[in-house]
């Protein structure tokens, strides 16, 4: 199954998977990034590379600083120190909306649906470059933007069908179940055709059959060239999807590599991969 019209526009090469030969230029480089909350170091000097065309996993115990790191990468929290570069450009000072327009889209661990908008409207809000989305476009009237609206409605419905939510399109997003809200979140991000997708526990509370659907879909997107960073506690999914996997504890990166490599490291197993 190919995600057809929802394919990311970026034409980066698909993952080679071999790891041999010339190492690909990282899409995002993170150097000594810190984030403090009143003296508490939630993220404490993290340096990682996010390679293009791969699904990178980010795991670690509760409170390790995974969500905080993801927020700093997406710009929804400013960094207390360090640098973040994207495609070779220093974006440390960029606000979140500017990063999003350059293709870095995040989802939230906690539900962040637009409760008093319908499911379909939730997806449409995410539509990029909509002519009707400026004050000027609004004042010019429906005829000015209706073509864009039709296009985006079709795209949104395609996504809804894929995640089996078509029947809910006219319901308020606030009335959905927790798992359905997760899906809204993911679909909203996909509406933007991101280049780097930052997912914070996208599968928590989602039914196993839909988890499989999400996983297949993410693999399809990866094979189409999309780069993904995913925070997840569900290790089977991490094992299936992610290479490399980064392990965090107490704000620091304590290891990275494939899941098989990580399982061989005593201290990482002790810290997190119990069993």
């Amino acid at each position, binding site marked *: 199954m190919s995600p057809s019209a929802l394919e990311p526009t970026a034409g980066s090469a698909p993952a080679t998977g071999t790891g041999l030969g010339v190492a690909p230029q990282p899409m995002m480089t993170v150097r000594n990034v810190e984030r403090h909350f009143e003296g508490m170091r939630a993220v404490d000097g993290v340096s990682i590379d996010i390679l293009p065309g791969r699904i990178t996993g980010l795991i670690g115990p509760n409170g390790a600083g995974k969500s905080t790191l993801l927020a700093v990468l997406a710009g929804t929290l400013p960094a207390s120190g360090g640098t973040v570069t994207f495609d070779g450009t220093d974006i440390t000072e960029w606000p979140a909306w500017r990063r999003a327009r350059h293709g870095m889209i995040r989802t939230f661990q906690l539900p962040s649906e637009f409760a008093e908008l319908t499911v379909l409207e939730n997806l449409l809000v995410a539509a990029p470059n909509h002519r009707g989305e400026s004050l000027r476009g*609004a004042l010019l009237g429906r005829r000015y933007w209706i073509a864009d609206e039709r296009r985006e409605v079709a795209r949104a419905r395609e996504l809804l069908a894929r995640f089996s939510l078509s029947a809910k399109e006219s319901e308020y997003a606030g009335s959905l179940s927790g798992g359905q809200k997760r899906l809204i979140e993911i679909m909203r991000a996909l509406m933007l055709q991101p280049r780097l997708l930052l997912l914070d526990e996208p599968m928590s509370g989602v039914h196993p059959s839909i988890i499989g659907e999400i996983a297949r879909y993410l693999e399809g997107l990866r094979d189409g060239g999309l780069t993904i960073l995913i925070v997840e506690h569900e290790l089977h999914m991490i094992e299936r999807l992610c290479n490399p996997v980064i392990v965090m504890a107490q704000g620091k990166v304590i290891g990275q590599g494939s899941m098989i490599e990580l399982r061989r490291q005593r201290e990482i197993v002790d810290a997190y991969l119990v069993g």
Partner: protein
Amino acid sequence: MTYYLTTLGVYAGVDIIACLALNLQFGVSGIVNFSFIVFQAAGAYTAAVLALPPDSQNGGFQHYVFGAQLPFPIPWIAAAVVGGVLSVPVGLVVLRHLRVDYQAIAMLVLSVIANLVITNARPFLNGAAGLSLVPQPLSDRFNAYSPTYLWAYVAVTFVCCALVFFVSQRIVKSPYGRTLRAMREHELAVTALGKNPVVLKMTIFVVGGVIAGLSGAILVGFITIWAPSTWLYPETLILFAAVIVGGRGNNWGALFGAALVPVGFEEATRYLPQFGPPGLVPALQWVAIGLLIIGFLWFRPKGVLPEKPGRFAAATPVVGARLTKEPGVS
């Protein structure tokens, strides 16, 4: 009787215009603009001093700046412009960095301070006594006290209402309006989807300021007086009550709320027999407004006419078929 009815008509029109503007800011976008009345006042003062002759000409009994004696549409247009321009610094200071609850407090404080400043700075806009003898629009050509003039004024007011309603509907039913509603629901999520929240808030805040300024000009052109006592901060609360009762986010709701609360409510209570010590009836009015707000927020938070979700034509099962109806908010 004509005078009473036309006065009621103009007040109704002005309240409708104001409620539509507040609905765009608060109902649709979630901006708690507790200083709304300041922008109406800015428009009223602007229109007044641009229509009035220089203050030396009327015996110096009132002092004000400008006194430009400009002909009709100019004071109204300038009032709208000033309402919008004033929104820029206020919006940039209040809406950019403060949390929503602090925004509300800052707006309220701004409203109180602005009123105190104008009250005490007499040479600027004649202080507490306010401006009077503001010339009615085109009063040099028509008898401004004839019934025809009064009714024509009501008609012009309602034309302005219709215009503002049209603009508000275009905004609310557009993708721009949808993004504003999304921002009201979850600002951080909208930001993470690539929308600049400062741009969203500032544009709608300025639009609201322009409309508020216009509403002030319409009112002062009819009642011919304007003073700090006409724009005390509780006036804003009445408009909030109207928007909440009518239905946040729904322009029809704003219209209905304006007809019900500021117009109907104040008119209805005006004829209550005086009882108790002086000042009791007005005080009870405020109690009633407060109860109205709390009651609706408690029992019917979406108001009488709740916001309507976007409706979209059903997807046609045939692949590639055109949508049968235009999608859009209904």
